[in-house]
């Protein structure tokens, strides 16, 4: 069971990293990071359920805090780009900096 859960975590992590590498949409890249955080939380809870008998709450709180911070940063940056009517294509963000 633990091995299958770990395989699922590997698959989710691979999909998240591949999404960051192959996508050029800013929002989609942040959603990929959320997928990686889901994989990490799943790995943590499966590890703690089957291997270690300790409190998992600090690890999960850290992961949830990073996920929340990630989305807050996304919303702030999104509103900044939308106000200046800049495309969310990350390949065009360098032009935005040159303005």
């Amino acid at each position: 069971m633990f091995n299958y859960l770990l395989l699922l975590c590997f698959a989710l992590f691979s999909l998240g990293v591949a999404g960051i590498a192959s996508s050029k949409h800013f929002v989609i890249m942040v959603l990929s990071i959320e997928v990686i955080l889901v994989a990490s939380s799943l790995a943590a809870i499966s590890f703690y359920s089957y291997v270690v008998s300790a409190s998992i709450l600090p690890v999960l709180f850290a992961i949830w805090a990073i996920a929340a911070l990630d989305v807050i940063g996304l919303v702030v940056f999104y509103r900044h780009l939308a106000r200046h009517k800049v495309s969310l294509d990350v390949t065009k963000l360098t032009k935005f900096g040159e303005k």
Partner: protein
Amino acid sequence: MVYALVLVPAILMIVGTALIFVLKDTMHAAVSLAFIFILNSLIFLMLDQPLLALIQLFIMVGGVSVYLFVGVASSSYSNFKHTNYFLFAGIAIVLFAITAYGAYSSNAFQSYQLTNSFGISEASAAFSMSSTIISLYAITFMLFILALGSLPLLNRLRVT
């Protein structure tokens, strides 16, 4: 029986993750991400962690996903074809093969299957975790303070 029960949300999670990169609209991608969060909490429930499943559901679905819907995905701003599908599939398959092969070929899995301890004893792992619990709490607290403090700071900088 439990294997079959976990297999269904596992497959749905992988499909939902792939849908994030296939769907063009960010709203649909955010809904797919919320679906993944729900399935993740379902797996938590199957691992006999109902409280963590509930907290996961409240924080990730009730908080993060709703904030994502309201803040970003509700306005269809800047929609374009964002993902190279062949590159995405290639990188995902290669990375999965590397990570899975690296984990299964190592001695850690073999020792886990033999001693049910994943290469390390439960006592040593519990001790190492107890020694890092304070730092993890500190990191979490710092991140929350950073998230809260960034909002007035960015407001002062006239970013938002």
